[in-house]
């Protein structure tokens, strides 16, 4: 009997003392005195029913996982108990939850971590009873089921969805230091979406030439409505039914949502149930009382659909720490107007800038991952990132936005932010740019 197996066995026995450990033991074949696994059941006996949901609590951890068989297959996977990924739910039906940007790599947001902003909760919709109605200035008012929509030619596109209010809290309070990337910019998420180009549906119903706007309406309890120019439909608008390879999650609009690439998230109406074509906007609450941008001129900008280019370093970030030596500075950049052309990173608070590497693929209206290698020498540093998109737009400072729009402006607050690295390696948010 080796030390390893005896330790493993002792670990398991310790676990058996607790209720959770007991449940684990039931799934892990007991070891005999020689440390060899015994069959789970006598030959001919019914095999134990495998667990559908792996333990939610950290199971007993073998000292040497090569000496103890692991868990069986399961209907749905779960994250490692060593990984904790969580949104920040406010817990109310008109609330939000933000994506944990600091814990994610690459560019795709896992669907269960996509940010949320709802106006009357997440509806439970039976797809068999849900239709998309298209009427108004059309030749053939029509109703489409989910199955109908899947019969049309489909496209798959990777796009960011960003709330117009992303970054608002740190814009209003630039002095807060204990802010994570999730808090600063987590009202954005990036997914692979599959669905029907909206123009195919409008061709199908015979949109008339007088139609200049359409109203998109959700089937949730806020029956949310937004007016959208027809030109978006004939550009890149989609009616999507799948996200990251699976049907939409309820929080993301199951069974169908509108997806308007590059436009403020509120316009990508979830739980889409109706499209009405007309000649002018409807002036709904969500495009008058909300989602309009007051300006210092004494006016407010309306139908400010496109999201301006933004970037944020997601590592290092608060509440993490930096050790001396080489590491990556890594982050995300995107623009509602097309591709990211360039991301510059500064380690000295903007005195000098270095071009970061853009990790391919660089997609239009989607997250682009950037990084640069960085050797921290133990002296205080101020890390910033600045995105430029393919139109030549350069992400502005907070001060610049205030100069141009006024201190009371709201929505589309995409200012440069970053992280202050203290001499002890602790990292704090820096939003006062």
């Amino acid at each position: 009997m080796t030390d390893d197996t005896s330790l493993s066995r002792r670990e398991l026995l310790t676990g058996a003392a607790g209720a959770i450990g007991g449940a684990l033991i039931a799934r892990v074949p007991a070891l005999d005195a020689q440390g060899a696994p015994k069959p789970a059941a006598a030959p001919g006996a019914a095999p134990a029913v495998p667990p559908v949901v792996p333990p939610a609590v950290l199971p007993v951890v073998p000292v040497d996982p090569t000496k103890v068989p692991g868990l069986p297959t399961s209907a749905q996977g779960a994250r490692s108990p060593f990984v904790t990924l969580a949104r920040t739910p406010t817990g109310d039906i008109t609330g939000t939850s933000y994506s944990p940007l600091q814990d994610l790599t690459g560019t795709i947001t896992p669907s269960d971590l996509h940010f949320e902003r709802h106006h009357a909760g997440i509806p439970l919709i039976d797809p068999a009873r849900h239709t998309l109605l298209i009427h108004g200035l059309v030749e053939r008012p029509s109703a489409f089921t989910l199955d109908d929509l899947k019969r049309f030619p489909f496209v798959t596109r990777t796009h960011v969805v960003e709330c117009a209010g992303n970054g608002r809290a740190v814009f209003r309070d630039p002095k807060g230091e204990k802010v994570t990337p999730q808090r600063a910019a987590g009202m954005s998420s990036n997914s692979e979406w599959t669905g029907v180009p909206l123009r195919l549906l409008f061709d199908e119903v015979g949109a008339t030439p007088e139609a200049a706007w359409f109203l998109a309406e959700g089937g949730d309890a806020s029956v949310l409505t937004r007016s959208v120019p027809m030109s978006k439909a004939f550009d890149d608008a989609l009616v999507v039914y799948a996200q990251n390879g699976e049907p939409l999650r309820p929080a993301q609009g199951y069974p169908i949502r509108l997806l308007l690439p590059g436009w403020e998230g509120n316009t990508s109406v979830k739980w889409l149930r109706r499209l009405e074509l007309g000649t002018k906007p409807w002036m709904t609450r969500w495009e008058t009382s909300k989602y309009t941008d007051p300006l210092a001129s004494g006016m407010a900008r309306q139908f400010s659909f496109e999201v301006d280019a933004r970037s944020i370093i997601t590592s290092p970030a608060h509440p993490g720490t930096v050790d001396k030596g080489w590491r990556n500075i890594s982050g995300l950049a995107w623009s509602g107007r097309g591709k990211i052309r360039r991301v510059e990173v500064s380690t000295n608070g903007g005195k000098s800038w270095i071009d970061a590497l853009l990790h391919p693929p660089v997609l239009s209206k989607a997250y682009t991952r950037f990084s640069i290698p960085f050797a921290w020498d133990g002296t205080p540093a101020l890390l910033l990132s600045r995105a430029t998109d393919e139109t030549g737009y350069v992400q502005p400072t907070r001060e610049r936005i205030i100069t141009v729009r006024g201190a009371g402006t709201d929505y589309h607050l995409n200012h440069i932010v970053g992280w202050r690295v203290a001499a002890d390696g602790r990292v704090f948010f820096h939003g006062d740019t």
Partner: protein
Amino acid sequence: MQQTTRRIRGVVAGVVACGAVAAVALIAACGGGRDAEMGAPPPSGRYDIGRAATAAEIAVMDIDVGPDGVELPAGQGTVSQGAKLFGAQCASCHGVQGEGMPPAYPKLVGREPREGFPFGRDPKLEKTIGNYWPYATTLFDYVRRAMPLFTPGSLSDDEVYALTAYLLAQNEVIKADATLDAESLKAVRMPARDRFVPDDRKGGAAVR
């Protein structure tokens, strides 16, 4: 059966018209800006998917009211009727005087600041129906579809007229003894009516 035949012919026609050209050219030649994976459109331009919507099912869902109010339903309500309804069904969240409980429950009443629309300069100003909303029809449309929060869609059209009247009167937009119906609501002009401009951000070097 007839539909199936037409479909098959559609595919054949697509191949004949566009099959010989390279993929990139095919998009331009056959799709009029269509994405490559959409393939060539059927010759009729339609896929014959979905069914005709009935006038009755459209009427049930088509509850939106635009800024000229042409869709406003029959019915009417007074400010005083609205005051009673507000006390019973809205005040628990929006406050007895419509003062709200920010940030979760919006303030609904308030005309200050009366001059200059200074929201772009002062982040502390609270937007209300009276100082910020450009159209009165929006209030009718929104309350009818979305309020009260836990029982949306439960108000009759008369009740929505009454609540709209009450909130407009509290915001000093209409008189305290007013009655609202489709015609009088259409005629309401909101204080912030001319305060909205189209988006002038276009990308490029300028920050707007």
